[in-house]
């Protein structure tokens, strides 16, 4: 994991839309390409945060597991997953924000559907007030998605994750 870290850090910095031409070339269709772009944008913070969470499992928990002689599977479910859960949910929160970012941008380029296309279409028809309305809408939905994931995280980790 530590060896792969530079790779993740490099891939993480590639802007979402830079993936779009490549994925269009691969999938030859708008819809799966857009989904791929969302996936490739959102995955890195989730992976990186999960890795940090697992690396940061306190020695105390490992000692408890050792004294109880938990096997690998039990350690994974009873210690590793719950201990890393707050970090995983932090990753998910960043991930969902980024994927919302990527969705709107991809829709602008691919066209045909969605709020991104709506904004682009409004620009082409010079309906500035609709653009402003759409921006407010995009912002509010983004905020709600973030809160939703934070809320699920708070619930799932029994308050050990910050929300």
């Amino acid at each position: 994991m530590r060896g792969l870290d530079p790779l993740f850090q490099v891939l993480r910095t590639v802007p979402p839309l830079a993936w779009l031409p490549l994925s269009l070339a691969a999938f030859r269709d708008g819809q799966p390409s857009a989904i791929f772009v969302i996936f490739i944008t959102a995955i890195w913070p989730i992976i990186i945060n999960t890795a940090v969470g697992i690396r940061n499992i306190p020695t105390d928990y490992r000692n408890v597991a050792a004294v109880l002689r938990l096997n690998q599977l039990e350690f994974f479910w009873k210690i590793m997953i719950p201990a890393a859960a707050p970090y995983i949910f932090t990753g998910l929160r960043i991930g969902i924000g980024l994927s919302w970012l990527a969705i709107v941008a991809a829709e602008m380029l691919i066209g045909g559907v969605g709020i991104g296309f709506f904004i682009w279409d409004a620009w082409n028809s010079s309906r500035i007030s609709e653009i402003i309305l759409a921006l407010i809408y995009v912002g509010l939905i983004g905020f709600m998605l973030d809160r939703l994931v934070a809320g699920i995280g708070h619930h799932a980790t029994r308050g050990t994750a910050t929300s």
Partner: protein
Amino acid sequence: MASSFLSIEHVSKSFARGQSATQVLRDINLSIVRGEYVSIIGHSGCGKSTLLNLIAGLTKITTGGIILENKEVNEPGPDRAVVFQNHSLLPWLTTYQNVKLAVDKVFSQLKSRAERHAWTMHNLELVQMVHAKDKLPAEISGGMKQRVGIARALAMEPKVLLLDEPFGALDALTRAHLQDSVMQIHARLGNTVIMITHDVDEAVLLSDRIVMMTNGPSATIGEILDVPLPRPRKRLELSSDPTYLRSREAVMRFLYERHRAPALQAA
């Protein structure tokens, strides 16, 4: 020795870092009888926690061996339950679930589901924590957390209970209260207990024997003091008891006259 329950024989521990190795413990010999309460006291950095980790099997022994009931100790296990200094309860589990985790693991074959529940409750009762069984560790006080930690360790029915400065992080009143609880539990269950401490009063009050460690590096056992006080011991009555005061003085002399902390020696 045939009669000893737990024996530590010529145990040394070195930590290697790159080319250089630091010897932390040197030639430790100690044998403990069943049901005995032994405290290990010494200045910080003398390797007393390392010794406890060796007994627990959490750290590998460099030379020598530890034998518990004729079996060599070389890995951690529930027969040597540890109460950690900072309780180390799992924060996503309620106090009940924390104890239950240990019970489920240790008695998965031996007890039925109902029996495991009853055993978990019994151990929570022992430390008077039944009222907070559905609370998360973050919702209870430090003293209560430590109680649950003790319950979790007791629930494993360990041959030896290892306490790593169990009251170190608590305020004086809570500490006294918890010491009384531990004494009651020890009197009731007759566990073999090894406790790490740096509190002289605590050591004298609770122990049958006090093991005093010299200063590190290469620390070893400097002296072993018997505390011939009858049980049950009462904190208040002891404060003027001549045996208590003599024992206390002996430990103080060892720690502050003959084996002063390295930092104090320099001053």
